[in-house]
């Protein structure tokens, strides 16, 4: 079987004169040559979303200060939490309720309540689908970050992006299918975009890492260093000649042929990726839309604009991390006001810019935008003026990709501690994301160590109520 396949493939290449030189240098027949494991595949069902942009807020932004309006919390400010003390609080913490320092107001026709931390995003309220009954496992960052990204808080498992690309392939033959822009190095690091036991084609390709300015973020070894393009071309030409000689002597070997193709793809990536990374042709209006002209929003603005460019170029899964070298910026155990204000300012305008830009280009309809952190924060005070981790209940939001806009689903209790109605666990969110992409989370399996693994393990419930 494999023999006939190999020969027919070779014959095809020969007949269409798609040898390396012609193909890669002329940029022709790219479709044909790049048929690879990332090749797009039909989904299990009709998809409403073709790609994902995941805006990851590392550290856990407080839901009761952003998207989960709690009048009772304002009323009871400074009072003792009237129920049994929740588990897992840091030692010595008195359960004193703390109202949000920010005002909430209603936005858009839908009248969603959003705090003054996100005025720009607020203007897109009618596109947002708030999930206010989120809950997850993992009281600490490492656990919760990995739970969010891989579905497991402790074991090494493939990341969400890897599963998506494994299921659907990529729409661009010259770029990786899964890109992560400035990912965190802490709390699981590469595990959060790793492919674990899935083949390596499906792992995320990192551009830079947290703490590296987005303007410097690039794909590793993309640049041919001091070698001129002409010299590089000559080197490659000779190299492929050597390889083809080997292939001939070996009388066709799938492994050797695979390597020859990988050089072709690498060469194409060398010209395709820098074009996507180059923001110089964007208009002044666009740059301003993302806040790239202002210091506070410049960095995350660039990340968001890159995300749009990758989305446009057909990359399947794009993660944009708001993180930093030290770890988890949204993690305000103290100084909630100062910290959250700083971080919200850095992301609010860029996110609003991204939503507006996607919409203007007709991309929002089939791009699923996901916003959120690894957990929320407690409605009670920690220390003088901070909040502790709260995986028991928090908010994430979705936009585009076939979800209802101007919609709020689920709720936490009166103070915002526990998810109560319309509870959505991370497994449920994963199942729903896959569903929107046309994948059945129970059928998207991979056999490893004698078992068929799923992103959602044995869990996952699709939240049909949020689908438009």
């Amino acid at each position, binding site marked *: 079987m494999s023999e006939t396949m190999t020969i027919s493939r070779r014959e095809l290449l020969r007949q269409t004169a798609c040898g390396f030189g012609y193909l890669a240098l002329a940029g022709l027949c790219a479709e044909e040559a790049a048929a690879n494991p990332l090749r797009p595949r039909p989904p299990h069902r009709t998809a409403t979303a073709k790609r994902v942009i995941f805006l990851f807020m590392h550290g856990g932004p407080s839901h009761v200060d952003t998207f989960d309006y709690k009048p009772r919390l304002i009323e009871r400010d400074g009072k003792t939490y009237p129920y049994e003390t929740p588990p897992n609080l840091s030692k010595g913490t008195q359960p004193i309720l703390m109202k949000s320092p920010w005002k909430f107001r209603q936005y858009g026709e839908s009248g969603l309540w959003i705090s003054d931390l996100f005025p720009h995003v607020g203007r897109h309220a009618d596109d947002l689908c708030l999930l206010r009954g989120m809950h997850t496992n993992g009281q600490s960052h490492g656990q919760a970050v990995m739970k969010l990204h891989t579905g497991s808080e*402790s074991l090494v498992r493939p990341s969400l992006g890897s599963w998506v690309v494994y299921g659907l392939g990529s729409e661009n033959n010259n770029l990786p299918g899964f890109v992560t822009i400035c990912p965190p190095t802490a709390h699981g*690091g590469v595990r959060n975009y790793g492919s674990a036991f899935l083949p390596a084609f499906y792992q995320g390709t990192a551009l830079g890492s947290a703490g590296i300015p987005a303007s410097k973020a690039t794909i590793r*070894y993309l640049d041919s260093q001091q070698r001129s393009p002409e010299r590089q071309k000559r080197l490659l030409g000779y190299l492929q000649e050597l390889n083809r000689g080997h292939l001939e002597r070996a009388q066709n070997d799938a*492994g050797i042929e695979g390597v020859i193709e990988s050089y072709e793809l*690498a060469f194409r990536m060398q010209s395709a990726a820098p074009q996507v990374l180059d923001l110089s042709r964007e208009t002044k209006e666009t740059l301003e839309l993302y806040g790239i002209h202002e210091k506070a929003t410049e960095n995350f603005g660039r990340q968001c604009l890159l995300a749009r460019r990758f989305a446009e170029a057909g990359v399947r899964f794009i993660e944009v991390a708001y993180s930093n070298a030290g770890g988890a910026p949204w993690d305000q155990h103290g100084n909630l006001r100062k910290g959250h204000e700083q971080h919200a300012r850095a992301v609010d305008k860029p996110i609003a810019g991204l939503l507006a830009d996607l919409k203007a280009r007709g991309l929002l309809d089939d791009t699923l935008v996901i916003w959120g952190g690894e957990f929320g924060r407690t409605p009670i005070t920690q220390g003088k003026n901070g909040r502790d981790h709260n995986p028991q209940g928090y908010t994430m939001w979705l936009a585009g990709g076939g979800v209802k806009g101007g919609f709020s689903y689920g709720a936490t209790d009166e103070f915002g501690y526990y998810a109560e109605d319309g509870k959505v666990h991370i497994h449920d969110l994963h199942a729903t994301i896959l569903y929107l992409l046309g994948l059945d989370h129970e059928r998207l399996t*991979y056999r490893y160590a*004698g078992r068929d693994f799923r992103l959602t393990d044995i869990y996952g419930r699709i939240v049909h109520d949020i689908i438009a």
Partner: protein
Amino acid sequence: MYSHRFFAIALGLSVSQMLPAAQPAGIEFFESKIRPVLVQHCYSCHSKDAKRLRGGLRLDTREGVLRGGDSGKIIVPGKPSESLLIQALRHRGEPAMPPKGKLPDSVIADFERWIALGAPDPRRETAVSRRLSNAPDDREDFWAFRPLTKPAIPTVDSPWPHNEVDHFILDKLQSKGLAPAEDADRFVLLRRVYFDLIGLPPTPEQLEAFARDKSPDAFAKVVDRLLASPHFGERWGRHWLDLARYADSNGGDINATYTNAWRYRDYVIEAFNEDKPYDEFVIEQLAGDLLPAKTDAERDEQLIATGFLVLGAKMLSERDKEKLRMDVVDEQIDTVGRVFLGLTLGCARCHEHKFDPIPVEDYYALAGIFRSTLTISGSILGNVVISGWSKQRLSMPPELAAKRQELEKQLAQYTAQKTEAQQLLASLKKQKKNTADTEAKLKELIGRIDELKRKMPPIPMAMAVRDVPSPSDCRITIRGNVHRLGKTVPRGFLTLFEDGTIQPTIDPSTSGRLELARWLVRTPLVPRVMVNRIWHHLFGAGLVRSVDDFGNRGDRPSHPELLDYLAGKFVEEHWSVKKMIRRLVLSRTYQLSTHATPLAKAKDPENIWFGRRNRRHLDAESLRDAMLAISGVLDQKQGGSTIAGIGDKARRRSTEAFFRRSIYLPIIRTDVEPMLEIFDFPNPGMVTGRRAVTNVPAQALFLLNSPFVRQRSEETVNQIMAHAGSTEERIEAAYLRIVNRRPSAAEQAKALAFFKAISESEEIAREGWVDFCQALFASTQFRFVE
């Protein structure tokens, strides 16, 4: 479909790995749609656990379903409309099942589909229920659990075999109408055995010497020299570290540095170099701390070996410490099962293993042993929430110990003086007197104390376990939830080999680890799994291809007799890994060419019968080490810590100037050295017996654009230029060094043409040589071992 298939093959992946849809649909369907319904709605009356079995019908086994009940057969496989079961489910007449109410139509439709598929059902009566029922012992049922057999060496009428291994291989080939390939060329063979045994290429001189040596034992001499080389342990130790999920940091949530993991790494290298019997090697890693020792050195070694149990990635910041403890136990059980037995035991934490005879009780019998073992201990990073891990003191050389004692004495004196000075200072301040002198003295004392602390020889420590003070049995946790406890299970071992003679008893005052380790090496799986691993590394595929899975879902052996023959020899020859490798490498089978005849390709495309050599990718370490060796910069220093000064939280540092072999590169779990990661280095948090093989474009980019490869190319040019000579001679020298053979006339001509295209200035000519060498390093001839 067509192109998926093609590319799956092109990339060396099996089709079933690539396509979710291509997996055995029937069993999947049963597992996802049928079994859960049976469990939920039927088992209460129709299983062995039913209070009263109704209608004489059991639905918890395949046999039961097929046999039917008092009303006769309930299914006709392939014919749902004729099956009583469907009629009952539809509630049309009697019986109507389940009696409490009709199931949803979609569920009934699933049952129809299932029967239409032929009622696929993986359940075997005895497999899952043996412990609980009085069903007969079933260890005879499955090949891997049977005792080792002693197969006779097949007689073959041919002068072809070199040794008994070849008899088994040739016999099988002949029975399939196949013949072995021709022997490999001598240069090819030498390159192969160098990489396989020491992970480095031969030098041009070694190639020439071997080509000249016409004696019949020329190859055996090379093999013996390589087996005796200290580089042997660096190669084969690395294979073991893949299984031991070795790393220099925790990864997980808190990437704490494993300051002493290197001692375990060095222990492993040394064990392979000195050919430590494999059974001892196993026992030391599981229970070295419980073994008697004659000397301090022996004691140290045994403690260090148990680092194996501590190396796993842990969620150190888990606030629920009981959960953390059980998660660590789970990781240990899973690791021990996969590494030594080739079995996945982890499933049984929450439910009976679906495919292998591993009941929940067996899991908790083992869990009692590991829960009685101290692995998590204390806290680190000055944070009470973040747990640390168990360590043990190692011995100190007497002179260092004496020095330390002396310095400790001085330290105590200075510390006392410091306290005095502080008290004086406080009282002076109260009295508002001049404090300048005292402050100066205090400063001096603090300086001295710091200096002493710097000079103090540290106490050497090992990551090592010990038994907890009061070992105890473990209670079953309901579906793995550590706070929902079921009955207590006595500590013990797996029952799947149980034959009444080899279940030893556990001394209740100990964890039982030592008994477990000694029991393990008497099971037939331990030698089978290990010889198969050795075979896998030498031949590129195991006799059992799923090297980490010898269970029901794993592959069956292609040569069961050969596997048992080798396993038997292994035990008989005192578990000597080197003897086993020598036997395999000296077989003619090992020395075959990769060339496949059209017949062999057609009849055995995947080379199941080992009639030819598998062409293999160089692994990440060999690729890097070979480039360092060829360019003349390899630092051959062995052993020792390479993470000193890295801090409590591990971060990868630049390795630009690190020229030691790759096994000594620090392995930071969340941030593996890019070159290793790109070339399929395994995830260091997972047990890996068989590495993935990929051709991702990142590899191509690395070989074309990384400073590492460019620098090695430049250094290689220096080496070649040092041998003054004509362009042709230099081309030949580069070929010999990098791809370990001479270029053909056509290749010479191509190389010359490459140089001709470059202008003549000296500087540019040198650039040409650098590019030429880099092209050879990037070439498939270098990246594959024939």
